Structure formats: C-alpha cells, structure tokens
C-alpha cells in the first residue's frame, strides 16, 4: 500500500489549499508533509505538473519554496490497544498528550503517534504455535479497560501458520506473533496495525438488522427506534437539542463501544463530556462510561480541513472494533460541519458548485459515509458478529430542512429524529417532532419488544394515532378555542398532553428520568393509554373533561417517569382508577 517517498516544493499557499510541484508519481489521497514544519496534508487534485494539497493544519507562515514530502501512502488510522478513553483531534493525535507537551493552547507541527509507545499491555494468546490462521482471526487478547477486551486480529491479507506466539507484556510496536505464509514469508504481527481511513474495512457478509440499539430515551426507543447496524440523523436548528440527545445516546445506549466525533462544534461541550464520562456509570455493567468510549474532538476553531478527515477516522476505528465482534455506535456532531469542510475545499479548488456552494459529489459522500454502518459476520474462521451504528447531527442553516445537507441526508438514513424549534422553545425535550420523524426499523424490532411487552406494537400505534388526531384538533382549537370543542375531542387533547408531558418529555438532567429501561417505558405507555380508555366512558356519560383533569392522581400520571420502580407506577394507576370510579359514582348519584 505504501509507495516511494518523493520530495517536491510549495508553489502557492491559499489557506488550507497548497499547490506543490515535483511530487512525481504521487496519487490522489496520498499523505504529504508540507513545509519545514511537516504539516500533514493529502493530495486532492493533480493537474499537469501541479499537485493540489489539502493541508490539515494551520498554514500561517508557510512559504512558497518550502519542501513537500510525498509519502506514497494514504491517510491511515492506527489501530490497537490504547484507543479506549482517549481524546483525539481530527487526525488521531492525542490531545491529552499534545496538552502535556505543548501547553493548553494548540501548537501546530507536533508529531504525536495515536497510540502510546511506552505502555506495556498484557497479551494473552488465543492460538498456539502450529495453528493455521487467516485474516481476522483472533491471535490473542489484551484487557484494555475493565469492560473492553481488545482482540488482536491477524491483519487483513495475511494467512498462514503461527510460528511464534507467547503470553507477556508488550508495547504496541513489539512483535506478539509470527505467522509464516504459504509462500514462506514470515509476517511479524504487532498490536499496532493501520488501515486507510477512506476505505471501508472488509467483512465476510452483511446481515439483516434484527436488534434495536436501546437508548433509554423513550421517544426514540418506543416511537422512532434505531437498530444496531442502522443509521439515524438528527437535524435541527441551534438549541433544538441535537447535542444533548446524541450525548444521551452516547451515555446510555447499549452499544459495547461508543465513538463520539465532535466535528466542528464547541470546545466546552467536549470538555463537558470529558468531565462527565469518567464519573457516570453504565446502567448495564456498572462500570464507568469512559471505559467504553473514544472521543474525537475536532472543535470548530481547529483547522476546517481536518473536519473532513475526522469522521473517517471515527468510522474506521468503529469498524476495527466491529471486526473484533463488538456493537459499536458512532456519533457525529455535526455532519454539517463536515459537509462544510467539503464545500470549503471545493471552493478553493474552484470546482463548479451545485446548490448553495456545495460540490456536486456531496450526496455521494454522505451516502458513502452512512453506508459504512451495518451488521456483519466478520472475517476470520470462527463466526463472529459485529455492528456499526451511525448517528449524525445535521445543522441546517436557518433551521431550514430543505437545504442540501439535510435533504440529502434524509434520503440515506434509516431513522430520522426531526427536531422542532417550537417544541424546544416550550422546553419540550427531546424536541423530536412526532409527526415529522420516521424510522424504518419498527418491523425488525417487534421481537425485541415482545420480550418486554407483548402488546408493544398495538400501544405504540394507539399512542401515535392519538397524537396525530390531537394535532388535527389543535389546529381547529387554535381557531375556535378549545372550549368550543366537544368533550370527547377535549379528552383526546388531554390524553395527548398526558403522552407528551408524561412520556415524550424526558429530562436529560434528571437522575431517574435520564435513562428509562424497556420495562418502565412499556409500563408508562400502558398506563397512559389505558387511562384514556377508562376516562372515555365517563366523558360519554356526561362528565366534563375538566373534572377529570382536576383529579390529583391524574396529574400524578405526568410524574410516572420519575418513579424508579414499576410498582410505584402501578400504585399511582390504582389511585387513578379509584378516583375515576368515585367521580363516576358521584355523577351517577347526582343524575339519578
């Protein structure tokens, strides 16, 4: 994969675009080191003698005439023990390490290897000398964090017989095994391996999607679920809740590993996650969330071009853990900033723009990125399953969903969580609009839900249809006033308010409400829908809706989500039933 080094020189510097000459033989996608500081870049266009380079670091001070080294190799991610818990920039350089050696302000031109070179990892072999192995087979493991067993695989393209392997403490650069290939070559396998970020890692077979990625967020899991190996986009204007929702998923979803790519967004948000992940516990394992997380923090004031690369580093690392047999979630906040980086480079290259300055290949790039999600049987002789789920925020200018990035993304994702600024203004969070969102994963999830709630599909559909009906009625009410609607319709409005406040609204900062396990989601939804069925006959018999609303226990239904135990929920419901009964008998006495 790697070619010969060539040395050329800089002819022109225009921001992140550098024109060089003399890079004989360089190919599109080759990594180059630009100038005396050896800034990292990539060849993006070749015209005659001129090589257009996209530079990933600040080019201030760079001068025509400085040397450029063409490495002949593509941009690669380094993969191996040491990724978990790290915080990288858009080019997989450790920001913790950068901080340590260069102080709190970013300095450029530092060469920092992604994985720590000095750390020894305890390697335990899984195969023996003499075993035949092929690409993707697990040679052995390293306990990287308390929850992640890092499985060292036979590199892609290698097949042969294990000639040497032993247990011990190794750095990522030391040989942990030797494999002799059929042609008699001896391959030294190290724990640090590389893979070109723009090329999807191979797998044996793509599988249909069967299992949800459970997020603990009610509006997602119950109404617009996402599946392991699936894709989702969350578009919304600023302040509508993209970041908080994605962070909730990063914290509480049942993925084995979470890769959080902060792409062109706020520094303080990354600082916030970095502070909280080491404190928060995974509800399933009880271990700290940091033990299963990897961060890429390519914030908005870092060089724009690196945003373009950062998402590919994220998804390549994800595929690598998928290949080890894990379910990995990749979260990108925000894909719009990545698209803008594409636009920026395209503009500097003076390509003919399509819509709003975006290049014509925007759709192709977006589709290609989301295509890297999926559930697969991995390479290797033993059957292993893994998945990559991709969830991306989209930041439409002016909150307008018809703009190119949003409208294109919607076409390629399996679930859409459409955020609604009006809901956000009312502090209805997550502000996911239930009429504009969709998911293609309901069918495959029926089995999962059946375990927790045999009637999931029916209740979900009833709740959705009540919400839809209510939104129609609200339109009428906004012209004639709620008061003039028939009581039965007012009950629908009350019921939709109950579902909205009691179920859809979920406070990310409430110690109980922030994560809602499946059995509680099912229970709350049942109670809220059953309440409607109990109240309807009362309304039909002439009892006004306002009388029902005034019942203290009915208002308590809105707090079911704060109850930790299913029994407490049932207890409230018993009281509601009793109160409704009493109300009914009072009226019967009066009318008798």
């Amino acid at each position, binding site marked *: 994969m790697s070619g010969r080094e060539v040395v050329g020189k800089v002819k*022109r510097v225009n921001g992140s675009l550098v024109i060089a000459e003399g890079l004989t033989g360089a190919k599109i996608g080759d990594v180059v080191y630009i100038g005396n500081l050896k800034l990292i870049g990539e060849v993006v266009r070749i015209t005659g003698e001129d090589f257009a380079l996209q530079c990933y670091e600040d080019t201030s001070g760079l001068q025509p005439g400085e040397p450029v080294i063409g490495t002949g190799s593509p941009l690669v991610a380094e993969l191996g023990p040491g990724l978990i818990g790290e915080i990288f920039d858009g080019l997989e350089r450790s920001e913790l390490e950068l901080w340590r050696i260069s102080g709190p302000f970013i300095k450029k031109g530092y060469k920092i290897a992604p994985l720590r070179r000095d750390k020894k990892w305890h390697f335990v072999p899984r195969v023996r000398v003499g075993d035949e192995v092929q690409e993707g087979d697990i040679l052995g493991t390293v306990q990287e964090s308390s929850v992640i067993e890092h499985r060292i695989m036979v590199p892609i393209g290698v097949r042969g017989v294990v000639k040497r392997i032993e247990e011990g403490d190794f750095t990522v650069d030391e040989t942990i095994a030797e494999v002799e290939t059929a042609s008699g070559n001896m391959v030294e396998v190290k724990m640090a391996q590389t893979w070109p970020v723009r090329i999807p890692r191979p797998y044996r077979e793509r599988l249909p999607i069967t299992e949800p990625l459970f997020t603990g967020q009610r509006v997602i899991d119950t109404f617009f679920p996402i599946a392991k190996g699936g894709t989702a986009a969350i578009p919304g204007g600023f302040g509508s809740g993209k970041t908080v929702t994605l962070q909730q998923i990063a914290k509480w979803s049942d993925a084995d590993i979470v890769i959080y790519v902060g792409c062109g967004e*706020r520094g303080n948000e990354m600082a916030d996650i970095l502070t909280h992940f080491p404190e928060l516990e995974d509800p399933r394992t009880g271990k700290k969330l940091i033990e299963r997380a990897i961060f890429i923090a390519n914030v908005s004031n870092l060089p*724009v071009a690196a945003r373009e690369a950062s998402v590919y580093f994220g998804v390549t690392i994800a595929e690598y853990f998928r290949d080890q047999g894990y379910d990995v979630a990749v979260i990108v906040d925000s894909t719009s900033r990545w698209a803008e980086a594409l636009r920026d480079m395209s503009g500097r290259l003076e390509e003919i723009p399509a819509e709003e300055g975006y290049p014509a290949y925007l759709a192709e790039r977006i589709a290609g990125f989301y295509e890297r999600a999926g559930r697969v049987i991995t390479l290797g002789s033993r059957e292993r399953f893994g998945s990559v789920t991709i969830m991306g925020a989209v930041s439409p200018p002016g909150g307008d969903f018809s703009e190119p990035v949003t409208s294109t993304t919607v076409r390629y994702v399996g679930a859409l969580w459409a955020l609604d600024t009006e809901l956000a203004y009312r502090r209805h969070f997550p502000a996911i609009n239930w009429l504009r969102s969709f998911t293609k994963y309901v069918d495959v999830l029926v089995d999962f839900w059946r375990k927790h709630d045999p009637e999931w599909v029916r209740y979900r559909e009833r709740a959705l249809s009540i919400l839809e009906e209510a939104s129609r009625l609200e339109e009428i*009410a906004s012209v004639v*006033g709620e*008061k003039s609607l028939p009581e039965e319709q007012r009950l629908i409005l009350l019921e939709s308010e109950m579902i909205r406040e009691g179920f859809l609204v979920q406070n990310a900062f409430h110690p109980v409400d922030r994560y809602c396990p499946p059995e509680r989601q099912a229970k709350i939804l049942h109670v809220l829908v059953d309440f409607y069925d109990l109240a309807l006959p009362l309304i039909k018999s002439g009892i006004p809706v306002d009388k029902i609303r005034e019942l203290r226990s009915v208002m308590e239904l809105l707090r079911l989500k704060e109850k930790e135990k299913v029994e407490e929920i049932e207890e409230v419901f018993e009281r509601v039933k009793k109160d409704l009964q009493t109300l009914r008998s009072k009226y019967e006495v009066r009318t008798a």
Partner: protein
Amino acid sequence: MFEEKAGMVYRTVREVRGPLLLVEGVRGAKYNEVVEVKLADGTEIVGTVLDAFEDKAVIQVFGQTEGLSLDTAVRFTGDVMRIPLSDELIGRVFNGSFKPLDGLPDPVGEERREVFVSVINPAAREPPSEFMQTGISVIDGMNSLVRGQKLPIFSEAGLPHNVMAAQVARQSTVLGEEDFAVVFCAMGIRHEEYDYFRREFEKTGALDRAVMILNLADDPVIERILAPRIALTIAEYIAYDLDMHVLAILTDMTSYCEALRSISVAREEVPARKGYPGYMYSDLATIYERAGKIKGKKGSVTLMPILTMPGGDITHPIPDLTGYITEGQLIMTRELNAKGIYPPVNPLPSLSRLMKDGIGPGKTREDHMEVSNQLYMAYAEGVRARNLARIIGELGLSERERRYLKFADEFERRFINQGPYENRPIERTLEIAWDLLSMLPEDELIRISEENIRKYHPKHRKAT
C-alpha cells in the same frame, strides 16, 4: 506596533481591488504574514498575505481603503501578526489596529502573542461552572450566565441592548473584587453609543479596569476583522497570565460580518447564503471559541457579543451562525419593548446552555432549575393563550387558558421587567418566580418536584 523595520519593501503593486492588493515580483511571501503598507500620502496601514505565490502575493489590508493606489509601498515583515502584552494595557484605549487613542505611548511588552490563531486544546478546557450573578431576573433566573461562557445578545436597532450589556458589566463585576476586568471591543457602533458605555464604566470605576478597542462607525470597515482578535488576545492574556476574570463585550458583530462579506466579495468567492461566505461559521468560531476556562488557571474569559439581527430575522446567517457557536442567546424583541418591558428579553427563544452547570444546590438554590423550567412552560402556555385570544377573543378561552394568560401578563410585568439600575439577588428573583407560580394550581407545577414545592411554594411556606 508593527515597528519592525526589517523585511523587503516592494513598490510593485499591480492591482487594487477593494481591500486587496496584488503585489508582483515578491519572492517567498509567507501565508498570513504581516505586511506594512505605506500609501502615497505617507499613511501606514497593516495587512496580511492572503494568497502566497512564488513570485507574487495577494495582500489584504485592514485599514482605510481610500487612498490605496498602485503607488503604494509594501513591506513584508516575515512574521505573522503579534501584539505586545503587559499589565499596563489595563485602563487603556486603542483603535482597531492597536494604535493608542488615549494620547499615551505605543504599548510595549515582553510577551508578543499571535492575534489570529489561538485555540484552546479541548482536553485542557475546564467546563465553566461558576454562576455569575447579573442581577437581572430574566438572565439569572432563566438563562443564567456562567464564567467562561459565550452568551450573545440578539437584538434589533433601537432596542436597549447597550443598556443591558452595560448593566451586566456593572452588576456582575463584584465591587472591590480586584481580579475582574472588562475588555470592550466596538465595531461600527456610533460615537454616542460608545460614549454611553464609557460613562457607564466610569460610574462604577470599571473604566480603570477596562481595555477598549474601538472601531467606530466612521472608522475603516476592514479594520473590524482585526479589532475583535486584538481584543481577545488581550482578554486571554489578562485571564490566563494575570489570573483575572474577564468580561469581553463585542459590539456589533453584524458590522463585523459585513466586513467579512465585503472581503469575500472582493475575492469573488462563491457565497453560501445572502452573500455571506461559506467559511463565516468557522471564522466566527475562531472569535467566539476564545471564551472559556483552562484547567489549572484561575482566570476566565466570558464573552458577551451583541448583534443586531438584520430585519429582526433570527434565521439570517449572522444570528443563525452565531447561535450555532455560542452557548445560548438572549433575544430582545420589539414586542416586549413596545409594552415598556425592560429588559425586553423574550425567554422562550432565549437559552443558556451552560446554566445547568452553574446553578443548583451550593451554587444558587436546589429549586432553581425546576422553577426555571416551570416558568418556561407556564409562560409558553400563556403566550399561546394570548395568541388564541387575539383570534377568538378572551371570552372564548377556557378558564385554564385565562389563568395562563393572566400569568403571562404578570410574569412580563413583574419578573422580566426591572430597572436598569435594579440589582436583584438570585434569592429575590426566585421569590418573585414562586409568587407568580402560585397563581397556578399546584398540581400543574409538574416540572417541579414535590419536595421543592413543599419547601418553597408560598402556600407551604406560610403554613410552616
């Protein structure tokens, strides 16, 4: 400031287009290098290299563009733009190119820092978490400001954003607290607006602890690109080297963005929206993201940019891209202003993203967040009822809707509304909030926990 006299001088300007100069025959210009440009009449302005070729360079100047001609000398300094820094800057006034306006000599300092590129490593950031009491209820109660936050005011021409910004500066600078400074950067504002700020700062003695960078309405437009960066380079120095808490006020960011657009037009770039360049988001981020706190350092930079929304349109690229970068926004509306409410901040579209980290037990009070959430919900409900009443008349409202409508009116009159010199402690703000919430049935206060209702609801308080 750019006193170095080293470097080659060229008199080979071949083209002048707006703020851009094409200089030919230049060997080895560095990208972003500072140049000094000397006009025919002897005026000196600064510029930087925008596009560096082997034998020519495109220069962007930051000063006046009148008087630029082919007969212009350009000195290439070989270094990116830096300014000298020292504690003597505090109390001083400069123009947008860092030339003294206070009659004192040019600043000197051992420390020379880069003006354009300054990025805090995200791993080294300390998440802001200290409540900053502004004494303004709608801010403290519902959109709390936190030290190290960037919280802009989205306003419109004619609204009292300056009055509020000055009130924040006055009231959040605890008197007698030595470690506080204000950095004020004016871009395209009128003299009378500047005089107002100056008088306000003077009144509280804040002027002695302020640094002013002024580019007023009649100053060169392109200098506005430079002014906020100089201001923030100083702010960072004061915060992280002198260990002080800095409040930086940047006004008006709309003028800044217009300057950015005019350069983009001169460069014939393909615009994104409304003629503004596609890189405006990233450009603004390099300004706004300079707010913050750093692990292990005492100081902080809190940023309050002010912008006037063109046509009052929040979807206009300037407020839109700002909102995508800043940690919330305070939105002033004509409607509230017309009702005589000061400050006319509508809490519904306003937001402080960092509020949750700066309030609560030990910081403000345990019920703060919940009370805020409940106020939001109730006010939104009331505004909805008010809109409905406009269509069907108040009589058509249900009893519940009427109650919320009344709540909204009272909330605007008693909670949002206050005097420009009234400094309400947070306890007072919460007290008013509870008084208002007690107009509603207790069972409907669903965003507040039962414990907090029992503890703080006036009804229960009186009982105990």
